[in-house]
């Protein structure tokens, strides 16, 4: 017996930490290899029929997986492309399984070997082989211009092509975050694009995406629609089932809902919370949605007065009545949060968090006690920057402001348009703001880039070197039992020093008319349509 079975360790860890309720110990390795045997490509040609029209409410920036920063774009990109790995959800557990790969093995804890499926072709007829995979990974890691997702492959040392269908990735450290880095919803570092198409279109690849996915890109008319058609040579047998898919690009969600009710469209990739009651009352549509991997918070500017004062920040953290916020701002749909780690990360989320004594919650007495310790005892005026953005727009600020008034903080609500809001947040030009980090699949991406002392997204500027060390340490620990307490400790530091005031975990909704069958919900805001058919 030499060393440890790294693949098993990783597999266990993956199956365990992302499970929703049950932790199926020992089954992990099975989950990873389960898909390995699934079919030889091109045997059964699917019979496609039906034209699905689905409203996409948000902005699509680009269809280039390596450059998009928008989940709404990923929802479409994912139907055109495949990755080395994919996210799978069985209603209980989120797992990562090989997608374009037939198998995924770990030679040691730093070396991953992917054996690719045979005969997979891009939509332009070029083969998807180890060369293509290497090309895509390098495009993310060190392409020109630099991909915003390059950091996810920063630890990738070498890429070796063993044979045309086998590729070996060597990392400089055990990279616990890899499956998420390759598939994570806002990243797409592991998505494989056609090298021929990239060479042909260059920077315009995002308007001419060519992948291996179940649907081929047809056209994109600005503010109108993105059209896809079935890829009859798709490697998963019997799929896709639809002949054509139209993503109707819309700005107004209430119009989309009306169109759904009138039968003009078959679904919505996103259903804002304010419309959920109406959808519930409509008998011909089905709502898909659960609390996903996210958290919302009120951010405070720790770099300048008044919130450079830890006691004042703590006062804010304890003064927020989360129950009222959930009811008023989130239409009663969200779940009170105590710490950032969210329910879908089961092996990290504490089911008894409400009674565990960890984190932040509403306690006005405690808030007032902290307020009494604050340096500034006069009435404090603070600028709260808000914008019509996010699922609940300006409602949070309006709900939070009176709560702050109770502890002698006068929030000056400043409504700016989204681009200005973004600039002010990124330049830390605020006292208070609210935001949500979404589509998290791992505690690392939940807190580390957001609150690391020199983190690019640490807009509030909270600094704690112990927190940094804990997270860095947890990044290379593969064992859940060992990793969990590190994140708990890191979270506790953040909550205790009130780097933010945490609020809620949100559900993310999608709607389909009852004609639409076979939609597989994945709690990472994905809309994969290869299994979908129209009755």
């Amino acid at each position, binding site marked *: 017996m030499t060393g440890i079975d790294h693949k098993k360790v990783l597999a266990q860890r993956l199956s365990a930490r992302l499970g929703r309720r049950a932790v199926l110990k020992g089954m992990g390795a099975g989950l990873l290899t389960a898909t390995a045997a699934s079919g030889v490509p091109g045997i059964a040609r699917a019979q496609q029929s039906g034209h699905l029209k689905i409203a996409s409410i948000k902005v699509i920036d680009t269809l280039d997986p390596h450059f998009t920063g928008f989940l709404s774009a990923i929802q479409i990109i994912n139907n055109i492309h495949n990755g080395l790995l994919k996210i799978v959800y069985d209603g209980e557990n989120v797992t990562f399984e090989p997608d374009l790969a037939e198998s995924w093995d770990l030679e040691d804890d730093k070396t991953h070997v992917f054996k690719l499926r045979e005969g997979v072709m891009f939509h332009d007829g070029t083969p998807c082989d180890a060369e293509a995979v290497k090309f895509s990974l390098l495009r993310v890691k060190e392409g020109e211009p630099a991909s915003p997702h390059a950091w996810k492959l920063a630890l990738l040392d070498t890429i070796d092509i063993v044979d045309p269908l086998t590729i070996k990735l060597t990392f400089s450290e055990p990279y616990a975050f890899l499956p998420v880095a390759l598939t994570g919803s806002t990243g797409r570092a592991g998505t494989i694009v056609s090298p021929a198409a990239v060479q042909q279109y260059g920077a*315009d690849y995002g308007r001419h995406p060519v992948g291996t996915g179940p649907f081929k890109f047809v056209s994109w008319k600005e503010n109108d629609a993105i059209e896809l058609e079935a890829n009859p040579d798709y490697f998963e047998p019997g799929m896709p089932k639809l002949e054509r898919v139209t993503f109707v690009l819309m700005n107004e969600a209430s*119009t989309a809902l*009306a169109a759904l009710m009138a039968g*003009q469209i078959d679904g919505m990739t996103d259903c804002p919370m304010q419309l959920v009651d109406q959808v519930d009352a409509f008998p011909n549509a089905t709502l898909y949605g659960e609390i996903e991997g996210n958290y919302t918070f009120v951010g405070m500017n720790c770099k300048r007065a008044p919130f450079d004062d830890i006691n004042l920040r703590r006062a804010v953290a304890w003064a927020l009545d989360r129950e009222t916020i959930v009811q008023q701002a989130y239409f009663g749909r969200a779940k009170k949060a105590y710490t950032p780690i969210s329910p879908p990360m089961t092996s990290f989320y504490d089911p008894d968090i409400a009674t565990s004594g960890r984190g932040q919650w509403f306690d006005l007495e405690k808030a007032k006690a902290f307020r009494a310790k604050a340096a500034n005892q006069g009435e404090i005026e603070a600028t709260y920057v808000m914008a019509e953005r996010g699922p609940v727009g300006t409602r949070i600020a309006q709900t939070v402001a009176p709560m702050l008034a109770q502890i002698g903080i006068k929030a000056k609500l400043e409504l700016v348009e989204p*681009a*200005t809001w973004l*600039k002010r947040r990124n330049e830390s030009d605020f006292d208070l703001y609210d935001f949500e980090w979404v589509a998290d699949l791992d505690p690392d991406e939940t807190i580390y880039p957001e609150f690391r002392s020199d983190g690019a997204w640490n807009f509030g500027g909270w600094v704690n070197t112990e927190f940094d060390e804990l997270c860095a340490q947890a990044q290379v620990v593969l064992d859940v039992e060992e990793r969990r307490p590190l994140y708990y400790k890191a979270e506790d530091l953040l909550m205790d020093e009130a780097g933010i005031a945490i609020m809620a975990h949100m559900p993310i909704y999608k709607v389909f008319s009852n004609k639409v069958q076979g939609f597989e919900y994945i709690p990472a805001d994905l809309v994969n349509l290869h299994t979908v058919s129209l009755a």
Partner: protein
Amino acid sequence: MLRQALGKIAQTLVVLFFVSVASFGLLKLAPGDPIQIMLGSEYSQESYEQLTAQLGLDQPFLAQYADWALRFVQGDWGTSYVARTDIYTYAFKEALPVTLTLASFSLAFAILIGVPLGVISAVKKDTAFDAGSAVLALTGTAFPSFLLGILLIWFFAVKLQLFPVMGYISPWQDFWGGIYHMILPGLTLSTYFIAMITRLTRATLIEVMEQPYIAAARARGEPSWRVIWVHGVRNIAMPLVTILGLQLGTLLQGTVLTETVFNLPGIGQMLTSAVLGREYMVVQAGVMMTATLFIGVNLLVDLSYPFLDPRLRARK
């Protein structure tokens, strides 16, 4: 007349120049930049700087403007920063026809409904019909178009399923389909104008009907309908056309909300998303087109006067 037209066109070019500088400058002065929006949250300073340089956004303001203007007049409208759309195709070939169709429909509705209503109100002055149309007109001017749009959708498209909720079909490709899709948005956008035209027609027609030539026509024994619809209405054409020309700006403004509610891929939606996304060149293209449209229509209005009023025709 040719001289007059050429003079107007020269004026137009000067105006367009100032409009382009103003819109370019204003948008640049507004905080926020396209790269930040396009990169979302996950980016490094390095990729930010690279993209900024690649798109030429690190150049000084005047250089950026000059670069844009030189290309624009040569017919190269550029490519949008984020989505990499060819702006000429997007703005001119795709968005403009949609907005023109919507605007034409609204104008047609406004004239076809507003003028008869106004004429009848004027003729039946101080009757119940007149009072009723006054109330309708006031409601029409006061009612926000986006709310009306949503109400129309819920009633006619969702409840009665008579019309489609949204979408655009080019009447050039499918004539009846195009009209069918334009009825609700056209009606929404035209309410304000129907109301305005009704009131304007009523007021001017009442004045016209007191003129001696009307009395003369009546004295000649011409039938009442001819007196009203020929002698009367012809004489309100000039104020009507003038107001319509000047109100075109309001109409184009209205397309923003109407296009959003009915999801029509026109200039209104294009400009909204371009301003929010700080797509400077798309905004420029939109502003240039609407400004040209506005000036062009008012030029046509000026040129139409001699046809509407024989007294204004140049004597040879």
